[in-house]
């Protein structure tokens, strides 16, 4: 199949709303970052975010013009690149806070490759699963898919970056579900995972003492269940909840300087990254926080809609994967900030500070836009086909 050319795109179908939503969220992000870092040594972070935003927006436009079928052709290369990057991180990466997740690039500085790997994995899976579309339920196909997935996921796990690993697994599940894997497989896997999880938690609670000493993830999980005992670890979430809760209906106002602000009291750590939602909750209140959630939900559903109208499985998978990426990351980040999940380090898409995160979000958006530009000529909704 030949690649589409620029003039083959249906410009009128360019999903503007998606762009607007993404832009809107990003702008909110910049404003909140500025508020979170005012008066500190990082006061100029928001400017870097603006720069990153400009670059990312540009990348989005570029990618939206690249035919996604290209990736389908290149998926083995993509896989190799993923593995190579992750391996490089493990070998030559820089350790921050106990995890080796970053590498230093000349001129650009510090980047977190696992952010890019997420979107690249989405592309890889979309390509692989669509290639194997017809035989998706056959054992050998599943084997190939799982096998090729295991390698990068393992490398991520070893960084250690458990939270990213979990998000990737969820992504994988969403995508292979979209690829029409039979419910037999689904039920079969659940049948294994659920008891395994049960056993895992039982083991964790039984050997609390030793595990806590050696593994930080054990401490994190147990701190969630037993906040009093591990007060120092639960501290971040507690303060985040305090900030959000005290925001009330309309919040304390952006850039609030009141001494009653949890943010101003220096009680929020990572206020510009992991816990940026705490600032949102405190300063923009319920209206702002819920508004953002609605915005993101709308964004996801629109992406899914683009996927529904995609001309082929590959396009559909790309949209689904991207929607799931945004969706799950948002859910996890906000769950942590509101104290519903053990503490992990997932950024909030579009809003958290971080060039890597912004870039991968906009690149993914670009790809989805491209899919959108090639949508089927069918006017009437026909859900049954999907």
């Amino acid at each position, binding site marked *: 199949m030949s690649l589409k050319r620029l003039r083959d795109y249906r410009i009128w179908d360019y999903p503007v709303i998606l762009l607007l939503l993404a832009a809107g969220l990003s702008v909110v992000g910049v404003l909140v970052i500025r508020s979170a870092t005012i008066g500190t040594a990082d006061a100029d972070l928001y400017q870097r975010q603006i720069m990153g935003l400009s670059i990312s927006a540009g990348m989005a436009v570029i990618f939206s013009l690249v035919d996604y079928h290209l990736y389908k052709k290149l998926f083995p290369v993509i896989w190799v690149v993923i593995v190579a990057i992750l391996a490089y991180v493990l070998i030559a990466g820089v350790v921050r806070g106990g995890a080796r997740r970053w590498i230093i690039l000349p001129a650009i500085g510090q980047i977190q490759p696992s952010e890019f790997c997420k979107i690249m994995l989405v592309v890889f899976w979309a390509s692989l699963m669509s290639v194997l579309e017809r035989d998706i339920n056959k054992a050998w196909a599943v084997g190939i898919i799982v096998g090729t997935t295991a390698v990068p996921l393992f490398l991520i796990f070893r960084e250690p970056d458990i939270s990213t690993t979990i998000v990737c697994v969820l992504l994988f599940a969403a995508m292979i579900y979209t690829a029409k894997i039979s419910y037999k497989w689904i039920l079969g896997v659940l049948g294994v995972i659920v008891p395994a999880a049960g056993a895992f938690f039982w083991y964790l609670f039984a050997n609390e003492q030793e595990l806590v000493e050696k593994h930080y993830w054990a401490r994190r999980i147990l701190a969630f269940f037993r906040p009093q005992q591990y007060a120092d670890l639960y501290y971040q979430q507690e303060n985040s909840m305090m900030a959000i*809760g*005290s925001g009330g209906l309309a919040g304390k106002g952006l850039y609030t300087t009141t001494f*009653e602000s949890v943010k101003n*009291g*220096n009680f929020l750590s990572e206020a510009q990254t992991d816990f940026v939602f705490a600032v949102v909750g405190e300063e923009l209140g319920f209206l702002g926080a819920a508004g953002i959630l609605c915005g993101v939900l709308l964004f996801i559903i629109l992406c899914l809609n683009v996927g529904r109208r995609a001309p082929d499985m590959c396009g559909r998978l790309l949209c689904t994967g991207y929607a799931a990426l945004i969706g799950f990351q948002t*859910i996890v980040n906000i769950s942590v900030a509101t104290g519903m999940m053990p503490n992990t380090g997932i950024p909030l898409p579009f809003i958290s500070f971080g060039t890597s995160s912004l870039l991968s979000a906009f690149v993914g958006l670009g790809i989805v836009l491209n899919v959108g530009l090639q949508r089927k000529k069918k006017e009437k909704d026909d*859900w*049954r086909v*999907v």
Partner: protein
Amino acid sequence: MAREFWELIGAFFNKLVRSRLFPLAIIFTLLFGGLIGRLYAMQIVNGDKYRENYVQKTLATLDIPSVRGNIYDSKGNLLAGNEVVYDLVFRDTGAYRTHQAKNTAAREIWHLLQQIGEPLVTVIPIEATPYGFVWSTDSPARRRRFLIDLCGRTYIERRANNGEDVYAWTATQVIDYMKAKYYFDRWVEADKKTPVNPDNETALAVLNIRFKLTMTAYSKYLSISLASDLTDEAVAAAMEAASDIAGLTVEQNYKRVYPYGRYCAALIGYTKSADEEELARLQELYPDAGYKAGDVIGVGGIEENMESYLQGRKGQQTVYLDSQGQILNVVERTEPEMGSSVYLTIDIEKVIGTYHLMERMLAGIILANLVDADEVEEKQNPEIPIRTVLINLISNNVVDYELFDRPDASEPEKRMREAFTAKRAEALAVVEQELSSPEARPYETLSENEQAYFDFLYSDLLQSWGIFKSGAIDRESEIYLAWAERSVTLQDFLRAAISNDWIETSAVNTDEKYANTDELYDRLLADLMGRLEESRSFDKLLYSQLITDHVISGNDITAALLYQGVLEHTDEELQQIQSGGREVVFHYLSEKIRSLELTPQQLALDPCSAAVVMTDVKTGKVLDMISYPGYDNNYFSGSIDATYYSRLIEDMSSPLYNRATQTTIAPGSTFKMISLIAGLQENVITMTEEVNCTGVYEKVTPSPSCWFLEGHGPEAARDAIADSCNIYFYEIGYRLSLDDQGQLNSAAGVEKLRTYAEMFGFSEKTGIELSESTPHISDREAIASAIGQGTHAYSTAALGRYATAIASRGNLYRLSLLGSVESADGTRKEVFEPEIVRTIELPDAIWDEVQTGMRLVMTEGSQSVNFTDIECFPMAGKSGTSQQDLKRSEHAHFISYAPFDNPEISLAVTIPNGYGSSFAALAANEIYKFWYGAMSYDEVMSLDAFNLGGAYNLND
């Protein structure tokens, strides 16, 4: 309609089951909905609660310290005040985030301190030596507290579970731990490559600063103190450097100062940070004052007694703090109130002069008895051989024998060091030999010097070690009695002590709990030898033997005195001392004693101390008070200077002891007025009845004698006082002890005397605002008690109060130093009125008799002989000499009041081991002259040792 509805539902579920994207959308919607619900619960439903919780969390009340009130004398001279000092402090403003940055900043601070020559205030109890790190404290409790602060209990427990005892860490282990904690291994220089390799001193300084910052990490409104009391140059240099180091400032603080130091330290006391016990006590006494840990409080003297007035009131601010303890917002602020000013009744100019007068009298007494001889007769009031002076120069640290080791020591010092080293090696060998060998030589076969070693071991080392279980030793046992008379060796005694379980095994450095007797003895011996080797007291014993045996000459010691810079001298003098014989030494040292360049405090001979209490007869207020020797309480201000304190403790003249209120001595003849009053009131004698003094009182055996061995002849009341006739008063004591059958009952006599002693306040403390020892009225030997011997024991303050009672004809006052208190703003004033504890009701005739007798003492009686060449101030008084140790000099007392015909003030002077009461009287005479202006202050301060004659002819 319904059918279409169900069709819609059917279509919905159809889509649900058959589509893949639709369920996904539903799932996301549900999840997001859940999150929104969660937000609703948190922000709308519970929003207020979160808000309140947060505000609660950050609201704090901080104290603002108050300035301590001043203490003045009666003329308004400042005795205790506050001086502004500049401290170098550092606040963590968050400018230095990484370990790298913090370490580098700390190092810069250290360099700055070295540049301005100020020492760093440290918290880590470890010292850096060129060879490594050592603990600077021996106290295990102190180490524990530090390690808990450093590592946290959780860490220590975890390590203990793994079998490692953190509390047993060596200093080096602690430093390694700290270096790891503060990432020293990642610390690089400015080029970002070369690792920083700090030397031990620098590393320790940086760690001190880092640790202090850690301790205030959550109280960032506090700054850490780097150096205190900076000189002006240091302040200037620090201000310059402050621009380079963020958070470095110079802060103004107050330091307590005592302009008159040793003259009134015993009266004033000092200030320091309260420890736990003191804090608990104050919180109980003054629950409203809000005492907290670390507050500065007064200890001893007026500082302690008037604490509640001097403390003032703390201010307070209610603030909002952030998570690091930085102040966000001040809600409320109450300013602190400065402490009130306390005005005492003493006149400091007179106090200084009196101190000097007593010092000069002490020097005079010493010179009067000093002889250039090696041996003197053992008797009451013995002569002082020059040898004792030489020994004390070393024993009392006037000459520092440890300086003999320094590389540039003089020839004499080197000689002495050699002699000492040889002797010490020998002595230690002998001790070890005799204590371990099964054929130890019996005590009497040892040389005198060797015997001294074992006596020292027993009475000094073992007792201060606390090796014997208290109360365990059976003093009736054979072995104890044998050792007491030295018929067995110390080894025998110690071995027996072990088998009799008299030894506190936990004090011996042993791991096994049930070592057998021999093993335990070997351990004990090893510990003992260790302690002996470190004992400065033992070194001094060896030096005293070297001096006595003339192995070390007086010339060498005196030369060392000059070489060590203790005395100003000319090269000529030094030359003479080194080349001359012993008479040069005697002459030179005597001259220095005469000129008061060598003080009685330094010499620590008998006598080396004195007490004076002068009271206003009409109010009981103390006008002048001396305890010689004094100490400089400026060294105690804030935190006790450890070097100075250990010097004071070692000082054989015990400067920390208040001779006026804490030393209790038998009053001797000063008590006789009470005996007279007792005799008269009990009707065992009349005022005109005469008792014949023959020089010996034969009514009892053994027969005590009168001090005037030839006998005074017939004496009646006032004459008996004037002549201080012992026989007259023995007779009173005798008569008081007779029961109805005419039998002698000493207990009865003592009881009767007690009644009158109590009348004059001798059973109570005087009530003065200082710490007093409890007095003791004699409870045996009525006849001796009547002349002030027996077991009477009274302080000079008590004697002063007694003199005042006589002078005022019956007013027994509560002695007091307090004049008035004024609030800091001058608006409130409280005057401390005189307090009469009780009025002593006696017939006028008795007061007349007593007062006349006391006047006659000066004009015709026992003291009149001292005033043939010297003019006697118009006073009435009574001297007293009391014996305690028959081989040492007697104690000297003198109580008096003046003017004798219209009393205004009373004066009590005591010179422990003062050789004779005349000297107390002569000193009192000078004090009166000074007090009434017959001698000026400058005149008094220019006087040398009082001329009492002696081997060193003061008229040269």
